[in-house]
C-alpha cells in the first residue's frame, strides 16, 4: 500500500519549502545558542536586596524577578490561543466539508492546549495550587506534554480503527468526544493542583535533565510513524500532512527540554516553549491552507461554470433561432401546399370545362356536318379530337404529378408481393408479354398508393414500349443492411445513354406524341415518389436489348417510426 509521493495530489501536501522552513526554525535556536545567544531568564538582570529599595522600585524589582514567569505565561498563552483558533477553524472546516476527522482532531489539539492553559494559570497562581512552583511547573509541563501526545494518538488513531465513513458527521459524536477529552484534561490538572507532593521532574545535573520529557519524545515519534503517517496515507489532505509535519517541532521541543533545559525559564526552556507555539501553528496552517485551496478551487470551478453557462445560453439562443426558422419554414410549406392544392383544383375544374366544351362541340360538328366535310376536313376534325384528348391527358398528368407527396395516406404494412401481383393483374396485358417476379419482395411500412404508382408506371411503360415478339419483364429485389434495391427490367427497345437523365423529366417523351401517344409524366411521377422516400432511381440500358429501371429505398424510411415534423397537406 505504498503511495508514491508523486501520486498524491499537490493539494494534499504542504510544500517542501515550508517543511524545510519549519526544520530550520527548529534547528536555528540551537545554532544561535552555540554562537553565544542566550534566551534564558533564569538569572534576573538586577539583583537588589529588598531592604535597600524604596516602594516604587520594589514593583520594578518584582517585575524583573518575575521576567521569566511573564515570558513563560506569554509563550504558553500564545500556544493555547493558537490551539483555540485551530479548533475554531476545524469546526468551520467541518461545517463546509463535513469531514469528521477535522473537528475531532481539532478538539484533541484544543484539549492539549487547554491543559497548557491550566498549567500556566496554576503556575501564575491564578488557580489555587498547593505545591511549590519549582515542582508544579515542570511536573504539569511534563504531564501536559504526555497528555498532548496521548490525546493526539487517540484522536487520530480513532480514524485508523474506525474509518471516517462509518462515523457520520454527527455532532453528537463530536460532543461526546469533546466531553471525554475535556474531562480527562480537567481531572489531571485538578489532581496536580490539589496535590501537595508532586514528583520531582527537574534534574539539573544529569544528562537527561528532564527524564519525564523523554516519554512524550518517544510518544511523538511513535505517533508520527505509526499513527499520523498511516492516517495521512488513508486521508491525504493538507491538514493530515500538517499533522505529520508538526511532529518535527514537537520532537524538537522534547529534545530541547529533555536534554537542554535544567532550570525554570532558562535558555532551552524558553526555546522549547516558543517552539511549542510552532508545533500548534503547523496544524492550524494546514487547515488555513486547505481553506485557501478550497476557496481557490471554488473560484476556479465557479468561473468555469459561469463560462459554461454563457456558452449554454448562446447555444440555446442559437437553437431557438433555428427552431423559429424551422417553424417558419414549416408554415411556409403548409401554405405552399395549400396553394398547390387549390391550384390543382382550379386546373382540374376551370381548365377542363372549356376543354370539355371544345371536345363536345367538335364532336357534334363532325357528326352533324359530316356530309359537308371532305377527306381533309374529316382529317382535321380527327386531329382536333386527338388534341382535345391529349390536352385532357396532360392536365390529368400534371394533376397526378402534383398530387404525389401532397395527398397523405396512413402508412400501413405492405406486402409488395401481393401489391405487385395486383398491379400486374390490373394492367392491360397482351399474351405475348411474360411478366415475372424473380424473387420474394419485402414487407414494407408505407403509404399504399405511391407504391402502386411506382410499379404501375414502370410495368405499364415496359408493356407499352415492348417491341419484341416475345416480351419479357422481370421484377426483382436485392437487400442489404440498410437498403432495398428493386429492378424492373425488360427486353424492349432500350434507351440511348444520352437520354438516361432526360426521360425522368416531366412531359419528356423520346418519341413525338404524334407517333406514340404518351403524356411523358409517368417516369417523373415515379422519380418524385422515390426521391420523396429518400431513395434514388436510375436506368441501365442497352439499345435494342432492353432496359432496367433500378431504384433503391432506405429501410429506415419504411419502418413504423413516426416522422418528427409532420407537414399538413
Amino acid at each position, binding site marked *: 500500500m505504498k503511495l508514491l509521493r508523486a501520486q498524491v495530489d499537490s493539494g494534499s501536501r504542504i510544500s517542501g519549502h515550508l517543511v524545510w522552513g519549519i526544520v530550520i526554525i527548529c534547528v536555528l535556536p540551537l545554532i544561535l545558542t552555540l554562537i553565544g545567544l542566550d534566551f534564558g531568564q533564569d538569572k534576573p538582570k538586577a539583583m537588589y536586596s529588598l531592604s535597600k529599595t524604596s516602594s516604587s522600585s520594589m514593583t520594578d524589582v518584582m517585575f524583573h524577578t518575575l521576567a521569566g514567569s511573564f515570558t513563560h505565561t506569554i509563550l504558553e498563552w500564545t500556544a493555547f490561543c493558537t490551539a483555540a483558533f485551530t479548533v475554531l477553524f476545524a469546526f468551520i472546516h467541518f461545517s463546509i466539508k463535513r469531514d469528521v476527522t477535522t473537528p475531532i482532531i481539532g478538539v484533541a489539539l484544543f484539549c492539549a492546549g487547554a491543559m497548557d492553559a491550566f498549567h500556566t494559570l496554576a503556575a501564575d497562581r491564578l488557580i489555587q495550587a498547593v505545591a511549590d512552583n519549582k515542582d508544579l511547573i515542570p511536573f504539569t509541563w511534563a504531564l501536559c506534554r504526555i497528555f498532548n501526545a496521548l490525546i493526539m494518538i487517540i484522536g487520530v488513531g480513532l480514524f485508523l480503527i474506525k474509518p471516517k465513513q462509518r462515523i457520520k458527521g454527527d455532532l453528537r459524536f463530536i460532543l461526546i468526544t469533546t466531553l471525554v477529552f475535556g474531562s480527562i484534561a480537567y481531572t489531571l490538572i485538578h489532581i496536580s493542583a490539589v496535590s501537595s507532593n508532586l514528583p520531582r521532574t527537574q534534574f539539573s545535573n544529569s544528562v537527561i535533565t528532564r527524564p519525564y520529557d523523554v516519554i512524550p519524545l518517544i510518544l511523538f515519534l511513535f505517533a508520527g510513524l505509526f499513527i499520523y503517517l498511516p492516517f495521512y496515507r488513508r486521508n491525504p489532505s493538507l491538514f493530515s500532512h500538517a499533522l505529520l509535519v508538526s511532529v518535527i517541532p514537537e520532537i524538537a521541543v522534547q529534545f530541547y527540554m529533555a536534554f537542554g533545559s535544567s532550570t525554570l525559564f532558562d535558555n532551552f526552556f524558553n526555546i522549547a516553549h516558543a517552539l511549542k507555539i510552532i508545533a500548534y501553528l503547523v496544524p492550524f496552517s494546514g487547515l488555513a491552507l486547505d481553506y485557501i485551496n478550497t476557496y481557490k478551487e471554488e473560484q476556479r470551478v465557479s468561473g468555469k461554470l459561469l463560462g459554461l453557462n454563457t456558452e449554454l445560453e448562446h447555444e440555446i439562443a442559437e437553437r431557438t433561432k433555428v427552431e423559429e426558422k424551422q417553424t417558419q419554414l414549416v408554415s411556409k410549406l403548409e401554405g405552399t401546399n395549400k396553394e398547390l392544392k387549390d391550384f390543382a*383544383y382550379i386546373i382540374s375544374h376551370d381548365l377542363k370545362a372549356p376543354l370539355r366544351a371544345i371536345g363536345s362541340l367538335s364532336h357534334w360538328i363532325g357528326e352533324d356536318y359530316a356530309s359537308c366535310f371532305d377527306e381533309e376536313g374529316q382529317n382535321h376534325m380527327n386531329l382536333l379530337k386527338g388534341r382535345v384528348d391529349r390536352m385532357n391527358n396532360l392536365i390529368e398528368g400534371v394533376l397526378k404529378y402534383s398530387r404525389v407527396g401532397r395527398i397523405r395516406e396512413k402508412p400501413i404494412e405492405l406486402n409488395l408481393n401481393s401489391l405487385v401481383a395486383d398491379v400486374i393483374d390490373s394492367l392491360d396485358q397482351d399474351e405475348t408479354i411474360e411478366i415475372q417476379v424473380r424473387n420474394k419482395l419485402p414487407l414494407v411500412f408505407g403509404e399504399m398508393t405511391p407504391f402502386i404508382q411506382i410499379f404501375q408506371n414502370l410495368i405499364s411503360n415496359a408493356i407499352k414500349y415492348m417491341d419484341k415478339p416475345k416480351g419479357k419483364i422481370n421484377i426483382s429485389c436485392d437487400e442489404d443492411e440498410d437498403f432495398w434495391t428493386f429492378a424492373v427490367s425488360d427486353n424492349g427497345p432500350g434507351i440511348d445513354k444520352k437520354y438516361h437523365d432526360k426521360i425522368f423529366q416531366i412531359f419528356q417523351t423520346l418519341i413525338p406524341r404524334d407517333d406514340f401517344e404518351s403524356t411523358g409524366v409517368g417516369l417523373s411521377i415515379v422519380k418524385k415518389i422515390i426521391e420523396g422516400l429518400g431513395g434514388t432511381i436510375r436506368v441501365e440500358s442497352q439499345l435494342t436489348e432492353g432496359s432496367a429501371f433500378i431504384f433503391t429505398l432506405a429501410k429506415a424510411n419504411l419502418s413504423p417510426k413516426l416522422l418528427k415534423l409532420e407537414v399538413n397537406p
Partner: protein
Amino acid sequence: MRDNKTILLVEDDQIDIMTVKRALKKIDVTNPIAEAHNGEEALDYLRNNPDNKPGIILLDINMPRMNGIEFLGVIKENKEFKLIPVIMLTTSKEDQDRLSSFNLQVAGYMIKPVDFSQFLEVMKAIDSYWSFSELPS
C-alpha cells in the same frame, strides 16, 4: 326513363347542358327536361311545380350562388323532395365531394367525360338503370 317524368338538370355550363340534351336525344330519352342554372333556381323550380315533381335530378356540383352539395343538403331535409333520386354529374374527382354526396344519399356519382362518346355511355347507363329500377313515387 319511366312514366315520362321530367328530368331536372341542374347545371350552369351552357355547353354541358347542350351535351346532356343531345346525349339524351341520341339515346331516345323523350322525357321533358327542365333546366336550372344553380341550386337556388332549382329550388324555385321544385317549389313552383309541386304537382309535377321531377322523376330524377341530374346535379352538377360547381355552380354559383348555391352549389350542388348545398342544394342536395337542402332538399334532403325537405319531406317533399327528399325521395327524388339525385345523380351527381360533375367533373370533380375530389374525395371530399364524393363523400359529401354519398353522405347526403345520392343515388349515383358520375364524372363527366371529356369525350362525347363516353358521355353517351354514361347517359345510357343512367337511362338503363332508371328504366329498370322503380322510382319512389
